[in-house]
């Protein structure tokens, strides 16, 4: 996260780290149910084999595992069948964990939006991740507040790519607060009345975040995919397993 701040342990209990040896942390991910996390499809490019991945939850400092940490292997990876590597559209995937997580204050699922629940421009939400900070990679989870930008406005920043309804744009023209390499698959969450946090986006792509070409970040629009997500989980749980 560029322009963010270090997050306190337990503040984002749905944030997880998708890891593969020997690199360790590759992408962010988001816990949505005891056995299911969401991330983006591009994290699995060239590494679609579930056996090479693990998911680490309840962690704040990647370098210092805590007693609250839970690790699960990956049982199944479901990539969106329409994921397009060329235009980074339909950039979403569902990951089935090897076993249920045990819900604690540090490991909890986020809420999913309703399919018709779309974010209004100028809403303020949060992004989190262990991605690049512009000058270094952090050990501790970073958080940043971003503003939602309309798709029309967002398109004006990206003349070579099409912004589709599967995407959400958030950030600032100056790029002061933005997601960056290593944040992919992590959450864009907004607080709803009652203090509940809902997952509206997954960090997907943007300009080279620490170059001089600035602009907002682009996130996969979770509201668009909610029906597909629920359907896949149902099929996997009740019809295939």
């Amino acid at each position: 996260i560029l322009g963010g701040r270090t997050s306190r342990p337990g503040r984002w209990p749905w944030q997880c780290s998708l890891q593969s040896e020997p690199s360790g942390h590759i992408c962010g991910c988001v816990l949505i149910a005891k056995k299911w996390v969401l991330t983006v499809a591009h994290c699995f490019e060239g590494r679609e084999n579930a056996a090479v991945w693990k998911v680490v939850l309840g962690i704040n400092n990647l370098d210092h595992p805590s007693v609250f940490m839970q690790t699960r292997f990956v049982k199944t990876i479901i990539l969106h069948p329409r994921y397009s590597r060329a235009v980074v559209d339909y950039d979403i995937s569902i990951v089935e964990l090897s076993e249920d997580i045990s819900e604690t204050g540090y490991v909890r699922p986020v809420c999913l939006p309703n399919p018709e629940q779309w974010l209004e421009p100028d809403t303020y939400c949060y992004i989190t991740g262990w991605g690049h900070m512009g000058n270094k990679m952090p050990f501790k989870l970073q958080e940043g507040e971003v503003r939602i930008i309309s798709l029309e406005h967002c398109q004006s920043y990206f003349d070579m790519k099409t912004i589709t309804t599967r995407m959400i744009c958030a950030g600032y023209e100056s790029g002061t607060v933005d997601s960056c390499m290593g944040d992919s698959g992590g959450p864009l969450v907004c607080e709803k009345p009652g203090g509940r946090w809902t997952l509206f986006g997954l960090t997907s792509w943007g300009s080279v975040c620490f170059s001089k070409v600035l602009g907002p970040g682009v996130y996969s629009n979770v509201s668009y995919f909610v029906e597909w997500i629920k359907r896949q989980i149902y099929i996997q749980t009740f019809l295939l397993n």
Partner: protein
Amino acid sequence: CLYNPCLDSCGGSSLCDPNNSLNNCSQCEPITLELCMNLPYNSTSYPNYFGHRTQKEASISWESSLFPALVQTNCYKYLMFFSCTILVPKCDVNTGEHIPPCRALCEHSKERCESVLGIVGLQWPEDTDCSQFPEENSDNQTCLMPDEYVEECSPSHFKCRSGQCVLASRRCDGQADCDDDSDEENCGCKERDLWECPSNKQCLKHTVICDGFPDCPDYMDEKNCSFCQDDELECANHACVSRDLWCDGEADCSDSSDEWDCVTLSINVNSSSFLMVHRAATEHHVCADGWQEILSQLACKQMGLGEPSVTKLIQEQEKEPRWLTLHSNWESLNGTTLHELLVNGQSCESRSKISLLCTKQDCGRRPAARMNKR
């Protein structure tokens, strides 16, 4: 010709069956080379003037790439017509012989376009020596000249307003290729060979129509995709499956959509929620005979809800309700869904149905985050 000797005979052999007339041995064939489908004639014979033995060979030849590219330079109005008269020569149906282009047509084409090829270091094809073609009306030989109705562009070209031909794939590609920019005018979905959503005029590729993923806001791209019989229902991927197989515990649609949304809660006026199963496209009550709490748990889980908070058995008031009852040995079936444990056509002894409340799974809270006192 019905057999090989006759094929030889058409070339002058004496082996031909006398009953097989020469007319039946015509070498003319319909033109299939897409490039030349706009010609004022529709039959050809091979080999052509380039020595290609078949239309397939012609279609992958260097010449069939060269001429369409050259046509785009607008060097000569009738270049496409000329190139087709030698790629797919007109066949005389009576004699089976070629009708060649007139020498003047060949010479005009060469005069105007040879220099254009020279600019890019290419040579005019050697096989197009114009002296081999007859002069117009000479020696009683017929030859081909374009008339005013000749289509200047091939079907794979777009004709600009100026008359220039540009490749059809360049139409509406965001870059002007016609000298008058007319290839970028009126670029609706149809012109770009795309499908248009009726509600918002959004253009879609034909491959995403009826593919099970809605793309138009009103789902119009996923409507009218199948024509199921009255006793069938449409799967999410638009296949048709018999109603009787819906929610029977076995996936019959290839995308398993006949087994989705089979278990629901129906809420009535008293805010009681009754367990319903959508078997064979009809709503059924679930009979309480032999019911156990583990089944309530399965039902709640299947609906994506949390643990069951209340399960009640309610006497049915309806005279002839539709019942599904528990399979006599449901415990040994190892079923993953509730509806596959239920059977139709058996009486419900207790005449009681299941009323169920499930908790909602908790989400979005962060109890470990403490307040920061100032």
